[in-house]
């Protein structure tokens, strides 16, 4: 039973990893933005699976609702509205050395980060001092809610304000100027 069990969790990880990486690579390689968006959804699903596998159930749900349900939809909206869904030439790189340098820089950074984590035995902080072991399932939602509405209340309110500001800003940005239609107000 234990074997089955371990195998299951590793299988979950493997499928999540495949989803994530395949999606991510597709995002940066496909030519069509709509395909890229679809690939992005794949990655997001993979991340949601990884969340569930790590007993962050609520976050997984939110990941789907917010990311897949709203953000990527927004991307698709914009793509469709703007009509930028035609295929573009991606092989040409106008900035000299951009790709090579990018590859080198990213590789060094990520390798360095992994090395750092490895040096620190994949732990970067002290275990929780609050004494409440992380719950899963319904308890997870409860715990997260308690944390967000007590410890991080200020941040919560700030992000709420940020959202409102973002919405107002986006409306203002995307609104057509009245002058464009020739009727000054």
């Amino acid at each position: 039973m234990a074997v089955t069990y371990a195998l299951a969790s590793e299988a979950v990880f493997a499928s999540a990893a495949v989803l994530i990486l395949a999606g991510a690579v597709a995002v940066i390689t496909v030519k069509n933005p709509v395909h890229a968006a679809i690939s992005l959804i794949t990655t997001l699903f993979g991340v949601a699976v990884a969340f569930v596998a790590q007993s962050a159930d609520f976050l997984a749900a939110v990941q789907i609702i917010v990311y897949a349900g709203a953000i990527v939809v927004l991307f698709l909206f914009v793509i469709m509205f703007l009509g930028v869904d035609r295929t573009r030439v991606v092989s040409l790189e106008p900035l000299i050395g951009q790709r090579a340098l990018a590859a080198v820089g990213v590789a060094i950074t990520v390798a360095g980060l992994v090395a750092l984590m490895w040096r620190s035995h994949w732990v970067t902080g002290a275990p929780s001092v609050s004494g409440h072991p992380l719950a899963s399932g319904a308890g997870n939602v409860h715990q997260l809610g308690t944390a967000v509405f007590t410890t991080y209340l200020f941040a919560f309110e700030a992000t709420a304000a940020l959202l409102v500001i973002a919405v107002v800003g986006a409306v203002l940005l995307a609104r057509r100027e009245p002058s464009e239609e020739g009727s000054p107000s």
Partner: protein
Amino acid sequence: MGHLATLIVLLPLVGALALWLLGGRVSERLVGSVATTAVAASFAATVAVTLSLLHDRHREITVHLFNWIPVGPLHVPAALLVDPLSVTMCLFVTGISALIHLYSTAYMHGERDYRKFFIYLNLFVFSMLVLVLANNLVLTFVGWEGVGVCSYWLVSFYFERPAAASAGKKAFLYNRVGDVGLLLAMFLIFSRTHTLTYLNVFHRAGTLSPTVATLAVLALLLGATGKSAQIPLFNWLPDAMEGPTPVSALIHAATMVTAGVYLLVRMSPVLAMSPDGRATIALIGAATAFVAATIATAQRDIKKVLAFSTVSQIGYMVLAVGVGAYAAAIFLMVAHAFYKALLFLGAGSVIHSLGGEQDLGRMGALARYLPLTYPTFVVAWLAISGVPPFAGFFAKGDVLTEVYRHNRILWALAVLTAVLTAYYMSRLFVLTFRGRERFREVTHGHDPHESPWVMTVPLVVLAVLAAVGGVLNLPWAHANSLAGFLTPTFGYVTPVAAASSLTAWGLAVVDVAAAIIGVVAAYSIWRDRSASVRYESPFLARVWHWDDGYDAVIGRPLTRAARVANDVVEPRIIDGAVTGVAVSLRRSAEGLRKAQSGFARQYALAMVLGLSVVVVYLVARVG
């Protein structure tokens, strides 16, 4: 507060305020009488105070009015010190002022700013009294500056004349330079004695080290030279003759210019601590007396002659102070006030009669036309020349006697000056009242007319005083001589040993001889001349090129420096440095600008590369 002395000070102020509040539409008559009455009442109060002081055993009354500047250890009260010295000063200040006020009511008749003139005059008297009666240096300084600013206003009274405006400014500025000296003296004294009240300063004067005392005395001297027109700050006084003549009489002859001498006399306990300082004072005094006298011999303007004469006479007083003869200095001051006021008023009368002419070359033979002015002028002339028995003889004699005892060289110089004094005064007298008539051109053929009674009455009164003023200080004539009266004030000073009577007589003879030599010389030269290059050397007429020297050494370089500062230093160097920083920043920014290619992805790449450097560093640090 309730003391009568308060009234002395306040009455002129009240007069000035009353005149101000009366407004511009009142008659000249009212204005004149208010102003004159205020000063006359002040004089009356002074007399009363003097009488009361004579019955006071300590001869020293302090009247506390209010606390003016109390800051921590510095306490400056507004308080009056009534002692023999200050009342003596007050007596002649108020007395002569009253006379001059009276005289001015007629002299200034019809002037545009008639009321303003009397406001200034009253304010001046007020300031002078504050100066004299103050019980501390700061309050003295109030009066000191007050008389300065009143003098500024009065000298530039005819402000539409550029010369008058410049003269007023010059007077104020020269005074101001002197004030720096007085301020420094105050600071120095305060920093050592922690007080500025005279009596306390005197008590603690003994603790001053000789160096500090000398520095303080020199600073005081600088202040005195400014106010009293001594070398090196004497040349504002002749220019100040641009003011109305009564002003010259009041301020630039009788009262204000003596303030320096008064200050030195007042600070005699400090002077006592510094023989070097006193020697300097004596030297300055003698030199001024002599230089001014030489210059006076060559002046063509009647008032200029009198102005230099004033400078010279005050030089005597300073000389007296320098040799420690404070009583003699005060005596000369009083006597000088009488006859110099008289001279100026007489000159004013002359000028008045000639419709404003001041050039000696256009006068002559006025004796006939000015029946009252002439005799009074004669008295004054004889008095200043040192002819007995007029006041000048005794006063100057006292000084010379004291100087003789102190320093023979200075004495010789003083006697020489006495000769010159007699000479230039006689010259003035001769050119004005004797000789040929040269004024017809000015008066358009009319005869000059004598002044109205309000102008001549003061002349007569002053003539009497000038004639008999000498008795003030004749020890054998009465018990309460001036020197005796003043003694308590100088009680802190070691008295000078009395000279033998033989020497005294000898010196008197020398004085008389000097006077006679001067008078005779002048008569012989100027009886039938009105101008002479030989006897009026341009060097002397140009005041030893003193003004030119100042202009070349101080005036022009400073002006040039100011211009350079304004045109070059300010915009180019100081502002230029700032602009330079800005410009260099802009240059470097223009260089750096090229790094901003506008390609967002390049910026992102830069970020990533930077991040990788950080990460590499961290990895290297960890292991």
